[in-house]
């Protein structure tokens, strides 16, 4: 989607302000929101691409006015609601104290959900979820081949940034076969295909204001590319 999350090339968003000796988290709620998002990701109700797409659907003015973990929290609430696990009304009720009484003993998880338990945390972090696919899919392009990115504007999730559409580049490396995020986010299956590191001259993208020798490398899938 042509959302505000797709920020490459925008002006006016202010200077970069690094923080000295920055802590990993700034607030307790950030710790919990981070961990809740990671933990519920293992339930098996959504994938990484659906998670990203959920955050992208935060209203743009709100997205720009809020912090990273607020985006995560908004996306998590959306996924939980979309999958019928928790409604925003239920959360609101707890926040306002209308249903603050601690529930009875925690219920067992609904059938078929994989709840992440403490004893499994280290193992799942070591092995994680894989976006790489072992399928034998022939590559459409070879290293060194000239390509042009497609001019697509899908309303759904895509990992082809706006600034890189209809631009000419060269295949720098074939990363192998991966899940295709656009299809995966739409729950249309993995549609496995090759992903490449594609090299663009900065001037091809930004024109003469860019430094002549600078380059931008972007990881792009077969379905984003045509032969140049």
């Amino acid at each position: 989607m042509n959302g505000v999350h797709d920020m490459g090339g925008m002006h006016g968003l202010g200077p970069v302000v690094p923080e000295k000796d920055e802590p990993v988290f700034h607030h307790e709620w950030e710790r919990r929101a981070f961990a809740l998002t990671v933990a519920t990701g293992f339930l098996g109700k959504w994938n990484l691409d659906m998670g990203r797409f959920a955050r992208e659907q935060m209203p743009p003015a709100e997205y720009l006015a809020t912090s990273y973990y607020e985006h995560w929290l908004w996306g998590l609430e959306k996924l939980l609601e979309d999958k019928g696990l928790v409604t925003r009304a239920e959360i609101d009720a707890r926040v306002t104290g209308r249903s603050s009484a601690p529930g009875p003993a925690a219920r067992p998880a609904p059938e078929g959900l994989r709840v992440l338990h403490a004893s499994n945390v280290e193992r799942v972090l070591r092995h994680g979820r894989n976006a790489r696919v072992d399928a034998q899919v022939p590559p459409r392009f070879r290293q060194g081949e000239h390509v042009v990115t497609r001019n697509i504007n899908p309303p759904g999730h895509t990992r082809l940034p706006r600034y890189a559409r209809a631009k000419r580049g060269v295949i720098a490396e074939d990363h192998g076969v991966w899940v295709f995020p656009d299809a995966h986010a739409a729950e249309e299956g993995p549609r496995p295909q090759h992903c490449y590191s594609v090299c663009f001259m900065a001037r091809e993208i930004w024109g003469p204001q860019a430094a002549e020798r600078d380059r931008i490398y972007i990881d792009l899938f077969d379905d984003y590319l045509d032969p140049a």
Partner: protein
Amino acid sequence: MAMSHGHEHEHPGEHGAPLSDLQLRVKALESLLVDKGLVDPAALDALIDTYETKVGPRNGARVVARAWVDPAFKRRLLEDGTATVAEFGFVGRQTDKLVVLENTPKVHNMVVCTLCSCYPWAVLGLPPVWYKSAPYRSRAVLDPRGVLKEFGLTLPEDVEIRVWDSTAEVRYMVLPERPPGTDGMSEDALAALVARDAMIGTATVTPPAGQGRR
């Protein structure tokens, strides 16, 4: 919705401590998920502990220092970052593919994720706020030299800048140049010189005190 305010009202919490809107909302969400059996609070504690104490840029710094002292390791690292870094057994979330980019006097690499905030968690931990912020995500690709100046780094015209936009599941880490005046330093002492930003590509590694700046 309370969380959309973008600022934090203070409310008395259950133990008298002030709780922000966000704190209240996340607490409410966690208690709901626990009651529904969807979340084990001890797993949340373990995840937080992992990223606060076990995974962070010290991991990446160890990789960089090893590459500086061991040419065969460096060769393998640049050829196959995933397998070579796996030798360290870091507990951070495993990446499907890690690519290590070597900075040289003529090529400077820097990493961004313009679409969200993809970052090599296993070697650098969780990203800093500036990496996830709109200013960096918007201009790292458009004006890398201007962004680097905001970090206090001015590169000569004849240095080629390569910006890597992490748009897929491949993760990138920069192997910075070894600073002068570090001959004979131990691997551990070298690792202590390597700060996070040098492995994102928004800084270089500063020589140890007394060696002067380049």
